């Protein structure tokens, strides 16, 4: 008699059924547990698109598993096509998850301190395998996510899907839009280069305008951690970016998706009678089951998008090249906010900082939030919503216009001579001079007007461009505008290039001059976008 007996049930089964059948049963059991209800045969059936048995085993994972418990078991055939959803909500979710995954990879190599953040970026780009492509993908997907989320909102408005009973779904969507924008914006600061610092400074300066002064000053202190961005501000933006906002986003997403499923995907406006909502009553012959159709499609979308994003980031798209280290004392010419906040920068140019930077955007946000409670007409048909749709089109046009006004092309008063030099030697990106082949920068002094006489095509192109922009310097107050490019041998493999603009001031005949120099090394490699 054994003192102690080890009981392995599997061995009993092997004894009873023999080895192979026992192993097979075990396999079936494990797969069924992992999939929360689908046996290997059921899964094969899903992939082959066989007719399911009764009761349909493909519904069990929805009922018993966590991951599919919110996912509907079937959709209406009318919302399964590209129209009316354009898959924009799904894409937003995909990009959200994608950002979390690539973001975690980047987090591993990043420390939120002004002392090392920039160095971390250099390390990521120079010493971390896949570091650059990960950064590019994170940035690319962030930009795409902003686009997709905005389009998703527009689509929901256009098809009237936000009307009763889905008003609250819309409101959670506005929260998600806000989270997306601020997530993207807060990530801007983290590389701690000049682009980061100044793009975010433009945005953050808005809160400083909150009246009265004591509130603005203190809110500004809360946001930036000090009167200007520094160690505290960077840490705050980092924590916003990696903890607070993702958390808020995940919670808001949970509510948003729950509400979407709870009310059902709204059908195309023309498919229902006015005032009727039949999304939850799907006739048997109109059902498209999650398994197999939707599942297969979503899986192939994921693998397709991953391939596209990876290839695009590797070969086509580069996140903006790292600019010089953040420097609170030097504001680069032509600093702009991120493109999705250009409309705000445009508004600031229209007028008062408080009115246009705070009150109007605040009212717009509030309006967006309560829009479904304002447009209460029962009809979702396009024909019945002419006023609403026209106003929306007008709003989109206004935003586009304001965004244009936010760019440096509109109403930025800088000296035309500095602008002319910045055309060749921009302060926010490499530009034509730095990207030109180093060998072609022949030593000498070249007149812009005599560009045709330059020794090679590269110099001719550069000088012609210089000559072209010099016409902007010419004005009623400035005549005899001339430009010179001087290229000197400075050190081994190092050239000094000076661009000089000279003119005569008309009223007093005095001479004016503006010049700027740049040093270019043989291996600076600006042409590569690195």
């Amino acid at each position, binding site marked *: 008699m054994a003192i102690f007996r080890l009981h392995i049930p599997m061995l009993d089964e092997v004894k009873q059924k023999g080895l192979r059948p026992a192993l097979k049963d075990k396999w079936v059991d494990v797969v069924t547990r992992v999939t929360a209800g689908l046996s290997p045969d059921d899964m094969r059936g899903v*992939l082959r*698109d066989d007719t399911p048995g009764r009761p349909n085993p493909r519904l069990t994972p929805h009922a018993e598993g966590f991951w599919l418990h919110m996912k509907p078991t079937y959709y209406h055939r009318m919302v399964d096509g590209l129209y009316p959803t354009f898959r924009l909500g799904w894409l937003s979710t995909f990009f959200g998850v994608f950002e979390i995954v690539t973001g975690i990879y980047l987090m591993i190599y990043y420390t939120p301190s002004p002392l090392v953040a*920039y*160095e971390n970026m*250099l390390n990521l*780009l*120079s*010493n*971390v*395998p*896949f*570091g*650059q*492509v990960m950064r590019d993908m994170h940035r690319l997907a962030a930009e795409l996510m902003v686009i997709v989320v905005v389009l998703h909102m527009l689509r929901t408005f256009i098809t009237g899907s936000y009307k009763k009973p889905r008003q609250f779904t819309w409101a959670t969507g506005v929260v998600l839009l806000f989270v997306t924008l601020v997530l993207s914006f807060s990530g801007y600061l983290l590389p701690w280069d000049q682009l980061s610092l100044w793009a975010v400074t433009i945005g953050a300066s808005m809160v400083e305008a909150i009246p009265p002064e004591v509130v603005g000053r203190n809110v500004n202190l809360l946001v930036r951690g000090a009167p200007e961005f520094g160690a505290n501000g960077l840490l705050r933006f980092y924590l916003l970016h990696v903890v607070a906002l993702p958390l808020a986003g995940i919670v808001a997403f949970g509510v948003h998706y729950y509400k979407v499923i709870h009310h059902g995907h709204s059908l195309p406006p023309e498919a229902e009678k006015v005032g009727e909502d039949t999304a939850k009553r799907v006739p048997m012959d109109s059902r498209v089951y999650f398994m*197999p*159709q939707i599942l*297969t*499609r979503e*899986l*192939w979308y994921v*693998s*397709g998008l*991953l*391939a596209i994003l*990876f*290839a695009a980031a*590797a070969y086509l798209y580069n996140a903006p090249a790292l600019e*010089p*280290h953040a420097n609170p004392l030097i504001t680069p010419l032509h600093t702009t906010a991120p493109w999705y906040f250009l409309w705000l920068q445009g508004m600031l140019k229209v007028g008062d900082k408080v009115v246009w930077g705070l009150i109007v955007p605040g009212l717009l946000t509030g309006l967006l939030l309560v829009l479904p409670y304002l447009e209460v007409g029962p009809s979702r048909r396009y024909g019945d919503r002419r006023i609403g749709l026209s106003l929306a089109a007008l709003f989109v046009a206004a935003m586009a216009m304001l965004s244009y006004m936010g760019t440096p092309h509109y109403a930025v008063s800088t000296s035309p001579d500095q602008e002319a030099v910045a055309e060749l030697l921009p302060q926010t990106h490499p530009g034509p001079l730095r990207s030109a082949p180093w060998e072609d920068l022949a030593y000498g002094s070249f007149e812009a007007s005599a560009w045709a006489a330059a020794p090679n095509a590269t110099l001719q192109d550069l000088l012609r461009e210089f000559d072209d922009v010099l016409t902007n310097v010419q004005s009623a107050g400035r005549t005899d505008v001339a430009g010179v490019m001087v290229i000197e041998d*400075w*050190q*081994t*493999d*190092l050239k*000094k290039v000076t661009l000089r603009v000279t003119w005569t001031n008309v009223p*007093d005949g*005095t*001479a*004016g*001059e503006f010049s700027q*120099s*740049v*040093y*270019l*090394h*043989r*291996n*600076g*490699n600006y042409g*590569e976008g*690195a």
Partner: protein
Amino acid sequence: MKGQIALGLLAFLALMGVLVLVGVGEPNRMAEFTAAYDSRQIETGASLFEQSCRPCHGPQGQGIGGVAPALNAPDLFDGSRLAAVGFSGTLPDYVRGVIAAGRPVPSAGTNYPQRMPTWGAEYGGPLRADQVDALVAFVLNWEGRALAGGSAATPAPTGPTVGADIGVALPAGDAARGKALSEGGLGCTGCHVLAAVGPSWPADGGEPGVGARAETRFQASGYTGKATSSEQYLFESTVLPNAYVVDGFQPNIMPQNFAERLSAQDTADLLAYMLSLR
């Protein structure tokens, strides 16, 4: 649906393919980025040098006699300067240390009247560590040319010097020789012609040249020196620069030791050249 499964698999394979392709190229890409970064450090260093170092070390690092030693010189790179100073570390460490911490006392064997200022932020200077590194990269990039000869060593003054009494009679000056002196080891052009560290010598933006300005300045109100002629005014500005500082400029930027460096003939030549700039 079969099509979708096929497409999905194909996309997955494509993803893996791109992953491998990118992965194979990564060592190369990282090396390229590093090379480009090192080059851009040199570029950054060059512009920092122009702003901060040039007034004393000369536009091309050739040094200015009595002000600051040459950097574009073989002795810095062949080890003899380190040996003279008694520094046993590497050259990059030496250069970084001197830039970051400055020189509270002159090095052994030298007696420059001005001290190298502290530049590194960790010692209370204005530059971040990466900016100091950029300057080091720029200075070290002189190695090839410096070892091939570099700039000529700053000539030591010969014979009796002119002194700081602006009343002494000077010999007849030769403007051409004065011009050569100003462009040579004295380093005048570094601040007065090529950059606006000191008042511009040539006519500039409506202002006449230094020769013309000198004629009126010693009679202008607010003038604090003792000169009674344009020649004496320029003489005084050279050997006693703080006797009167032109509006818009700071005292103590101009080297204070030209009285001990210039011979009477050199002074006369320089003054003749300056007076010719109108």
